[in-house]
């Protein structure tokens, strides 16, 4: 059980500044994901928390105790590595016993061959073996204890790595992309297992991933990292619905959010040459970017699920479609704004249950609707405009 506090963490490798002042609080028992594209510094941040790297500046505290200068073993953290980092020359049992041996056997008893020369430590060794056995049972790998890592499948190795981390009773559990070496099906399975493990153990988890699906499905909160800065730290649903900036909106959600550059005018929003008639409440002449999730764009067509009439003001948009991806239960339509071919558009539409095997055919030109309530509005610098003030302005106009 631990509360983790990072304040103003800086780290450079040579002339490259990898972390530019990260401050983050992780609550006791929380599952926090550090997510970002490769090279954003998320793994470095995790290694700094574990003590494998030292920050150039900033402090790490666990439960209010300063950890910055402590060696990894003194921090009470456990870490699962991307490649698991199991010791290939040891059996599963030996792998899992390693943290116990290091913590509890005196130095001279750890030297090779000392097992026979220190018989008085036999009860301690037996106790550690018992602990390993217990954790192995918990993870359903007790039948593998005598095998070596090379004789295990990817999923089993993953579990051994978890076991080695668990056996030491950590206060903080760190994971560095632990699922990236597993195939897609196993990944989903282990994902649930890790979430279950988190729930059962009640430990604080910090989980690094580049996969937004992992981050969104597993975490209590997600910290989105880009180019060494935290863009936003929020629960998954908030991150999706209320991104604080365009960068966050673009990273979270697949297919990517639609971004329409518009200019506010008295009668509506101007998108290229077309005027989208809409009451909005912005000062005429303001440049804005309207973000619309692909599923917020509404499309009526045979074979697609019926749309309920929208409430509130709607934005009407013409689109030229280029391709249709049929995902079984839904379709994704790719194309561009009819008036501005440079602006890509993506729609996600639910298929109707009656559509069956029929291929969805759509005309080249589509007419879309989007309720303005679902739009996320950014200023020209990519910062999200306060939704409450936007709503107030719209109300005042209505």
């Amino acid at each position, binding site marked *: 059980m631990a509360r983790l506090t990072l304040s103003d963490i800086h780290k450079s490798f040579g002339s490259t500044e990898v972390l530019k002042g990260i401050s983050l609080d992780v609550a006791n028992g929380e599952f926090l994901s550090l997510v970002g594209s490769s090279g954003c510094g998320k793994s470095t941040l995790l290694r700094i928390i574990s003590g494998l790297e030292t920050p150039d500046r900033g402090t790490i505290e666990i439960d209010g105790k300063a950890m910055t200068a402590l060696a990894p073993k003194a921090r009470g953290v456990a870490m699962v590595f991307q490649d698991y980092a199991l*010791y290939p020359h040891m059996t599963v049992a030996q792998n899992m016993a390693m*943290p116990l041996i290091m913590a509890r056997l005196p130095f001279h008893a750890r030297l090779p061959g000392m097992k026979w020369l220190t018989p008085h430590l036999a009860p301690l060794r037996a106790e550690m073996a018992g602990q390993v056995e217990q954790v192995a049972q918990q993870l359903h790998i007790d039948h593998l204890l005598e095998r070596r890592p090379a004789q295990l499948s990817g999923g089993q190795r993953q579990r051994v790595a978890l076991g080695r981390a668990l056996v*030491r009773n950590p206060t903080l559990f760190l994971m560095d992309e632990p699922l990236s070496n597993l195939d897609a099906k196993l990944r989903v399975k282990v994902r649930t297992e890790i979430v279950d493990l988190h729930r059962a153990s009640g430990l604080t988890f910090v989980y690094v991933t580049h996969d937004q699906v992992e981050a969104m499905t597993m975490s209590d909160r997600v910290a989105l990292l880009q180019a060494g800065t935290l863009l936003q730290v929020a629960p998954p649903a908030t991150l999706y619905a209320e991104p604080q900036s365009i960068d966050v909106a673009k990273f979270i959600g697949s297919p990517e959010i639609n971004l329409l550059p518009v200019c506010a005018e008295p009668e509506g929003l101007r998108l290229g040459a077309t005027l989208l008639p809409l009451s909005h409440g912005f000062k005429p002449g303001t440049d804005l970017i309207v973000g619309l999730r692909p599923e917020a764009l509404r499309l009526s067509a045979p074979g697609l699920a019926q749309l309920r009439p929208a409430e509130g003001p709607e934005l009407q948009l013409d689109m030229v479609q280029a391709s249709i991806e049929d995902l079984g239960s839904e379709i994704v339509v790719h194309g561009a704004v009819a008036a501005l071919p440079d602006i890509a558009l993506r729609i996600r539409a639910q298929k109707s249950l009656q559509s069956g095997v029929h291929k969805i055919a759509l005309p080249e030109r589509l007419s879309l609707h989007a309720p303005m309530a679902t739009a996320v509005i950014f200023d020209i610098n990519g910062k999200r405009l306060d939704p409450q003030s936007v709503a107030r302005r719209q109300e005042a106009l209505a």
Partner: protein
Amino acid sequence: MSVRTTFERRQNRIAYAFVAPATLLIVLIYLAPMAMVALTSFTDYTLVSDYWEWVGFDNYRQMLADPAVSNAVRNTFVYAALFLPGAFIIPLLLAIAIQERKQFRSILELVYFLPVTSTLAAMALVWAGLMDSRQGVINAALGWFGLGPLNFLGDPGTVLFALAGISLWSVIGFNMVLFLAGLTAIPRSLYEAAAIDGADHPVDQFFRVTWPMLAPTSVFVAVTSSITAFKLFDTVAILTKGKPDHASEVFLYLTFLEGFEYFNMGYASALSVVFLGVIFIFAAVQTFWADRQTHS
């Protein structure tokens, strides 16, 4: 069905045609001479007589009773016992020390590797000069400490030490590079996992990660160094010729003496077959171990 078998037969013919030249070369260069040596070892063939006859195991029987052979075997084992620990431990320690350096790493690697690139026959003469009992630098240095002078190559008590020292000098760089390659192949994440598990003391790191992960390299180094030890010949031939008083007469040099000084080709062949057998055992150990490593 028949179409398929003719096709397969033709494929097989092509395959045999492809391996034929290499097979021929292996037979000509390795297997045929080895067979010739084995056959000669059962004869009393000498270079000075046209007449020879089959003598069965006579040469091998003679070997067991020959004091020169037991002397050579003893010398070879003493030499190996002096040479092998150094040839293994010094390069290992050097490799670990160099591996951790960022600066000068390549320069140090180069310096230690230089002796490997030099011609040992020529460098042996340099060593003879250094070890000379009257003008040698080493004896001059010993003199400062009030020791010596030692006749390194002329004293039966020191000659094997001196030869082992020269061989060590020539082989350390090579073994060090092998160990360096082995060390580089150990994933960094293992050391990181060890640090998190609490094994951050250098001694723990060595026994928990480095040493076991280095096992395949260690076996290779041990086997090749053993073979090098048992086939000691060139420095003996150049510097001591087995002297003084047969104190540096090692197995391969005795074989050479029997064959090319005393012209007893049959006997020399028998000695060669025994030598081949010993080397074969080492090679078998190496292969067996490598097999086990890849299959586990």
